[in-house]
């Protein structure tokens, strides 16, 4: 691996180290306390390996988390970090990123953290397009509180808090993010290291809020929730890999394809010569999120078809850049503030 001379495009104000870094340097001395077999281990290993590749100064990386199993993540990375309050990490990270453009700020949380108690902060951080990388570990269950259903659990979920089955419709996190004007939305799977790393890389290349849903197995309270996407006998027909510029096809022999239906939605067809050219070609940069939204509705784990990859990646000015630009412009135009002049502004009078 060569030593990057500059950080990824999304983090180009963050200083680079100019030295080769290792996974070991990014691993803290804290004992990892997730349950054996938890999908979080795979995500941690992927992030610990991936972050050094960015070539950034390690001291300029900050991980902010809320509460939940996933939120323990910052303790295990040897960067700056804050384990904060349930749901509030996006808000805290907004302040940090706005005040410090020289930092690479990552936010880790679970589906309860991001979709439930912190739902309001998530949608606003996405619409503002704060330059944050938001990794949501979606295991469709509450782990740390020992197994209640979550806002992404399927209807009818039987848990301790819903012994007769849950009755409320879950969020589709990708649809929610797209509806909140997110500029970068992706989905990946904990066990697919290569895909996960590629998505993280794309997120770091994106200047703005990058929302990444990572489907993650909770082997204690919701084991096997994503087996259909992982088992050799089902995965090929279930996972739809979105590739930029490519027709959307899936299945063991790519025999299935996705195209616009005559009824204004998407449909899955058996691909043959007659319809091959009618397949939808994936374009993450489409300014309108409508197609990305339709793709997010194509299906989910419960009906066996789940698109993964980057749904949307478009450029829009970030909140933090614009706030800082206003500060710089004001200073450039009229010079730095003069405190004595400020205090004496308005009507003054003198008493001798």
């Amino acid at each position, binding site marked *: 691996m060569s030593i990057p001379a500059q950080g990824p495009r999304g983090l180009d104000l963050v200083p680079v180290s100019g030295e080769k870094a290792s996974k070991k340097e990014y691993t*803290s001395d*804290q004992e990892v306390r997730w349950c054996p077999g938890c999908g979080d281990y795979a995500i941690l290993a992927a992030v610990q390996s991936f972050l050094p590749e960015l070539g950034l*100064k*390690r*001291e*300029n*990386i*900050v991980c*902010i988390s809320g*509460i939940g199993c996933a939120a323990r993540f*910052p*303790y295990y990375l*040897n*960067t*700056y*970090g*804050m*384990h*904060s*309050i349930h749901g*509030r990490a996006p*808000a*805290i*990270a*907004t*302040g*940090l*990123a*706005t*005040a*410090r453009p*020289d*930092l690479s700020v990552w936010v880790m949380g679970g589906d309860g953290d991001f979709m439930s108690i912190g739902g*309001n*902060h998530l949608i*606003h951080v996405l619409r503002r397009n704060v330059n944050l990388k938001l990794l949501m570990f979606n295991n469709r269950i509450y782990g740390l509180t020992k197994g209640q259903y979550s806002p992404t659990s399927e209807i009818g979920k039987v848990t301790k808090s819903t012994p007769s089955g849950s009755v409320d419709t879950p969020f589709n996190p990708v649809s929610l993010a797209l509806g909140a004007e997110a500029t970068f939305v992706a989905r990946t799977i904990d066990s697919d290291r290569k895909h996960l790393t590629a998505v993280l890389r794309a997120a770091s290349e994106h200047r703005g809020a990058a929302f990444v849903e990572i489907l993650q197995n909770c082997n204690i309270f919701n084991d096997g929730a994503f087996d259909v996407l992982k088992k050799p006998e089902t995965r090929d027909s279930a996972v739809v890999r979105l590739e930029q510029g490519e027709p959307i096809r899936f299945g063991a022999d790519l025999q299935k394809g996705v195209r616009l239906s005559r009824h204004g939605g998407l449909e899955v067809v058996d691909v043959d010569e007659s319809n091959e050219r009618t397949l939808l070609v994936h374009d993450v940069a489409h300014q309108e999120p409508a197609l990305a939204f339709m793709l997010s509705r194509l299906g989910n784990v419960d009906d066996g078809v789940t698109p993964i990859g980057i749904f949307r990646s478009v450029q829009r000015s970030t909140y933090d850049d614009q*706030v*800082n630009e*206003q*500060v710089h*412009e*004001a*200073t450039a135009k*009229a*010079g*730095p*503030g003069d*405190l*004595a002049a*400020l*205090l*004496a*502004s*308005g*009507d*003054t*009078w*003198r*008493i*001798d």
Partner: protein
Amino acid sequence: MSKQVQQRDRVIIRFAGDSGDGMQLTGDRFTSETAEFGNDLSTLPDFPAEIRAPAGTLPGVSAFQLHFADHDVQTPGDRPDVLVAMNPAALKANLADLPAGADLIVNSDEFTPRNLTKVGYAANPLDDESLSSYQVHPIPLTSLTVTALEGLQISRKDAERAKNMFALGLLSWLYNRPTSTTLSFLEKKFAGTPDLVKANVTAFNAGWNFGETTEDFTVRYEVKPATMPPGNYRNITGNTALSYGLVAASVRSGLALFLGSYPITPASDILHELAKHKRFGVRTFQAEDEIAGIGAALGAAFGGSIGVTTTSGPGVDLKSETIGLAVTLELPLIICDIQRAGPSTGMPTKAEQSDLLLAMFGRHGEAPVPIIAPQSPSDCFDAAIEAVRIATKYRTPVFILSDAYLANGSEPWLLPDVESLPTIDPEFATALNHAKEDGGEEFWPYLRDPQTLARPWALPGTPGLEHRIGGIEKADGSGNISYDPSNHDTMVRLRQAKVDGIARDIPLLEVDDPTGDADVLVLGWGSTYGPIGAAARLVRDEGARVAQAHLRHLNPLPANTAEVLARYERVLIPEMNLGQLALLIRGRFLVDAISFTRVRGLPFKSEELADAIRDVISA
């Protein structure tokens, strides 16, 4: 016609009208003229929460009271000597406060049968004997203004709207105010629409000339300038002073100021003010809610900014969890609570001091937070700097407890010399601080300064000091996650001891006891400073002995508080709540304090406080 001039040592004027009548502006302008003239003064705007309640109704009445004198002024005054009532609603809403013999200037044009019915007057009070104990001056302000503006290229509506300037002109004549500030203000306000400049200036001058020529006013009044310390002055409200204090703390510490806030009455003006000052590097973030406001401020503090959030009681409720996090993260953070009448929405534009115990104890767990309460509008400036000093030095969130009265009230402010303001050194951590067993060194984020018990503040971007902090209990020193029972006991006591220790670093409680032998001490905090001082003066003028002490620091209390309390036989604690400081004083010092409370959303009247003091003295 030459008019008789009478001397007055002080005057209280109240301007009252419909929300759309421009009474706040009229009051502001008269205040500016009065400040320019050199009187000491104090103001109290009193306006409804509704932006425009139905015209002419009681809920729509907006008022502005000004007290000015040839000596030092401590309150906006109890009862107005002059009431300007722009309509029947304004008369009805304010008449009860008017002492017999007061001057009553009313806009007679508005006393129509329809407007009178709207507020429940069966008959026109200008026509019957109901106002006979006042000096009533019914003046057709609207029609006189419209007549004066005939020939100008403005609509009738704009002409009518200038009637507040006619009233201001009349009052300016009556009290012999200098007019230059008002005239230059009008030039600036309506710059770009010369017709409106002309209309308002003409209306103002017409009001002045009306006073000169009408036989209704046979007397003019003169209030001589007050003797005040030499220097440059301006008039300032509490919210502006608080904003300036935060900017000054940023300048004097070299730390960037970051405000995370959600609009809420009566705190929003601080957000508005700070948003203007980008040249000072101020970043303001209007968040999606109160929680995000303080969250972003805390995030910015982690990055080395002065993190500030501004709010009122309902917002503090929502921010409590994040304040607790800041307590355990031990990061500097400023929480400005501009208190208003509660509970719940309560009376958003009215003042109360009912968040003291919320600031003290309103969090789960043992989560002590220092509290500073400014005692006058201009004191908000110094309180803000003091709050940043303590927050930075001790790595702790700090509460500033202002209130709606301080926030919107104003007084003359002797401009400080910028170079004399305190400097604040954040003393960021830059090096490893702990020897490892293997002989190497590491960084311990919770290794405390032995004097202050403050922990190091190591900013992201500092090489080698990478560390993780969080809400989970931390091991003393290393800061690693710890569920050890005795470590938790140690950490809870350390956090408390750190806050308690600030008592060594704040001024002692001063007592104003002119005769030195008073038996009764009046102890107050926050915005009651002026009213208590005025009441003490009334009582002392009668020859009685009373001492006054005022707490600016509520947590920790000044180191000599117990000693001061022990010196007096009786302690009276007036508060705009149901006895919150009294509860603290009783609990902490076993002093049988006497509580005197009012929760009407308005500051104490000095006369009612004087009665309370007389009662305690004679008991």
